[in-house]
């Protein structure tokens, strides 16, 4: 197994905080924690390259660091990318997470990292990555690296990955079918009894955390702004050309409204299993208010109504999925030069 390892300036031995501005650099073979990692990965495994970067440099130049790291890794044909472990180091965690996500997406090889649950890199990348729960104590390095090596091997060998508690990674919010011994009613009552007795039990619901989203800046000059309509109410052209699912949608679509002053029910349908769509079917302006927005455009209240509206179906959808849909939409919105969005949600 050929492995590439990423470390920050501290663990890579470049230096402490005063070297946090150090740019990306390359070492042959294993460095620092990599020397612990290499033998744990199995007999045939080698760390073929270690990438080092200062924490500040990595966060301030994230895109350039990612591009450069991918370029350096490309000819090595590595089987696995390992970053960290990062413990509580926030900038390190963010860089490690970003690199792992990029390597998985672009080089199509598994990546693994380790962080304490409070590390900001966890919120950003837990959906996309296996992140071993490192705790906050670097003295546990050997134990943490051992878990990373174990799960890393499984990923490379495409063996089945166990539950978060079994493998030691932070829950990713993935759902998996499982056969269990008792019915939901029995499990529920058992949990309730345990709670009343003050004994330990494990909830089957994961608390979902939403990181705060900064408020986008106010529009200064609305009469010059390009405004776009988006809906998660599932309005699609007749025939649903993008086959947007009515539940747990994995796709979204963008549909032309060029030259139209309102939306007509006979040209649209609703792919959304979560509300009574008859009213919107009768008059789609009740969901995507094209008629009123067109008036605003004609009166010069807004600069331009964008000539497409975006639609998907927001129903029973895992967060990992909806976040991806949102990111994809945001890319299009930026590309199209849209200044403001009105999102209508059912």
């Amino acid at each position, binding site marked *: 197994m050929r492995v590439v390892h990423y470390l920050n300036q501290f663990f890579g031995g470049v230096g402490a905080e005063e070297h946090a501005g150090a740019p990306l650099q390359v070492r042959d073979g294993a460095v620092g924690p990599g020397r612990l990692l290499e033998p744990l990965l199995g007999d045939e495994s080698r760390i073929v390259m270690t990438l080092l970067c200062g924490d500040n440099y990595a966060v301030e130049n994230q895109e350039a660091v990612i591009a450069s790291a991918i370029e350096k890794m490309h000819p090595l044909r590595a089987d696995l990318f390992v970053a960290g472990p990062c413990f509580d180091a926030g900038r390190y965690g963010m860089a490690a997470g970003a690199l792992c996500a990029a390597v998985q997406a672009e080089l199509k090889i598994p990546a693994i990292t380790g962080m304490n649950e409070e590390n900001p890199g966890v919120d950003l990348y837990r959906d996309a990555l296996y992140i071993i729960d490192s705790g906050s104590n670097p003295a546990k390095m050997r134990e943490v690296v051992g878990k990373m090596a174990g799960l890393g091997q499984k990923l490379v060998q495409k063996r089945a990955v166990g539950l978060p508690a079994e493998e030691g990674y932070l829950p990713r919010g993935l759902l998996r079918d499982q056969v269990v011994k008792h019915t939901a009613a029995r499990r529920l009552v058992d949990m309730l009894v345990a709670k009343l007795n003050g004994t330990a039990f494990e909830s089957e619901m994961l608390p979902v955390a*939403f990181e*705060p*989203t*900064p*408020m*986008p*800046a*106010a*529009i*200064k000059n*609305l009469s010059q*702004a390009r*405004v776009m309509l988006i809906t998660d*109410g599932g309005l699609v052209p007749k025939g649903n050309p993008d086959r947007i699912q009515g539940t747990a949608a994995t796709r979204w679509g963008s549909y032309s409204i060029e030259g139209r002053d309102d939306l007509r029910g006979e040209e649209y349908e609703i792919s959304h299993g979560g*509300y*009574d*769509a*008859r*009213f*919107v079917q*009768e*008059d789609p*302006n*009740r*969901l*995507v*208010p094209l*008629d*009123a*927005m067109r*008036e*605003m455009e004609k009166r010069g*209240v*807004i600069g331009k109504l964008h000539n497409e509206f975006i639609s998907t179906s927001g129903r029973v959808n895992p967060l990992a999925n909806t976040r991806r849909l949102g990111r994809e939409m945001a890319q299009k919105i930026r590309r199209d030069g849209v200044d*403001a*969005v*009105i*999102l*209508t*949600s*059912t």
Partner: protein
Amino acid sequence: MVQITSALPIAKMIGSNRVVLGNGIVHVTGDAKLSPEDEKDLRRRLVQKALDALQSGETQK
């Protein structure tokens, strides 16, 4: 961005920054009980509120 929705608790839970209360889950920007003219008036008012919200808060430096 501004969100027009009748599911206010969901908008709050996910931390939506600008929210305009819609006129019902089944017709966020409409009302089947109104005459077409009154319904369009309601929609104009909702859209105007959304546009007002877009201009609220800090402007870009």
